[in-house]
């Protein structure tokens, strides 16, 4: 699968996201505590842009009256009706088997590695400044 360069790592600090358009599809790349995850930028419910959602944790409770906040920064609340998605899997928290947003593979590499693999006929000098985030699709 071709890799698409998204950004330098430092351009997407933890907790933030960046939206890119790859082959006509809007993809949103999230930095979750230093790891990158790419989701289709479209809520499976009514289509809101997930990039405009809010990153939250997951409140859990064993019984009424006791609460614990787990997995801080790993859940995304849709900007419209508030459906929650696991940023690491794209799956809805309430109904993970039925409701999910499409996820794409991401990786962080130096640009030279990719340039070599693509065996370009014409090559240009590549300056590697920082690790770079790629999405495969």
């Amino acid at each position, binding site marked *: 699968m071709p890799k*698409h*360069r998204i950004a330098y790592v430092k351009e997407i600090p933890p907790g933030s996201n*960046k*939206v*890119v*358009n*790859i082959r006509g599809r*809007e993809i949103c790349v999230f930095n979750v505590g230093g790891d990158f995850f790419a989701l289709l*930028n479209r809520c499976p*419910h*009514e*289509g*809101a*842009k997930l*990039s*405009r*959602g*809010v990153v939250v944790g997951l409140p859990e409770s064993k019984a009424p009256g006791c609460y614990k906040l787990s997995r801080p920064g790993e859940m995304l609340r849709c*900007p*419209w*009706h*508030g459906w929650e998605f696991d940023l690491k899997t794209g799956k809805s928290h309430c109904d993970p088997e039925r409701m999910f947003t499409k996820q794409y593979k991401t990786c962080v590499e130096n640009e030279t590695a990719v340039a070599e693999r693509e065996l370009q006929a014409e090559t240009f000098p590549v300056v590697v400044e920082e690790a770079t985030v790629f999405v495969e699709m």
Partner: protein
Amino acid sequence: MTVIESPQAGVAKKADAGIIDCDIHPLPKNGKSLYPFLPKRWQEHSEQFGGHLRQPFINTTQYPRSAPLICRRDAWPPSGGPPGSDLDFMREQHLDPFNVINGILIPLFGNVGSERNLGYAQALAMAHNDWQVAEWLDKDARLRGTLVVSQDDPVAAVKEIERCARDRRFVQIMLAPRSSEPLGRQRYWPIYEAAEAHNLPLGIHSYGVGGHASTGGGWPSFYMEEHYATTMGGPATMSSLVLEGVFERFSKLRVVLVEIGFAWVPSFVWRMDRLWERMRSEVPHLDHPPSYYVKRNFWYTTQPMEEPGGSDDLRRTFDWVGWDRLLFSTDYPHWDQDDPAYAFSIKLTPAERRQICRDNAEQFYRF
């Protein structure tokens, strides 16, 4: 590869024939936006004393409820100000992409219908109406206004209706359902008389606060309870209007319940009819069973739409309520707003979609 630094909000999918959106909430940019339309005396009142609503303590309005200002998180205009306060952004995010051919504004700011200082309520109602004309109706021909009135002062409310009804861009009169007394009581009838005389329907919009607990069992603990509890005001409002005889006296009065749901209507009406058969002597002023008035005088907006799981249940609900009774609404820019392309959990034929999304409202509001 294009990099989109600030993605445009909203779904840019055009609804084929265009829709009439029967519930859009405009908001003043800030607390002073209404001042140009508010006499100095009431500006000062606003600064010194503020509103007197039927809720404990000032500034305890329970926002955020699910989202800041209960709004879509992508609806905050880049120009600043709260969602619903910037007409250009509303056009770009809502009116244009959803192909809204007419949009009905329902101003909720200040909860005017529940204001206890009646002088202030009247001044606020007038300010809201003049503000709608100057800032919205004059600026976009697609928009229509909702007449705000001080409902607990029917004399002033009627005066305000008389003042504004000449402007046909006002298409309904707004009443708050969690009112001082149930809306069928005769103290409100002067408003109904004026409404009928001007052929203006009543738009009764659910409201999160309003002095009375949203459930018969007191105040709920969770927003989730309260969000759906707003529906509970629907039967109370409907039965009061019907059983007090409002529609006997004002047979042409039309009522649209906005954002109160509609799937509860069939079962509630069955119960009312059954009781009427047994107790009609208590309400001898009703010549017909309650269902008669409900079918003749009530309409409903769609959002938030009941979403039954079974594939045909929603269709059957539409059959019961009446396909001609449903008026499509989004509730933009609130968080629970509906996108016309995805709001219906059943497949509609193009004719059915057109009826609910456009034709019904066209007839109801006489566009």
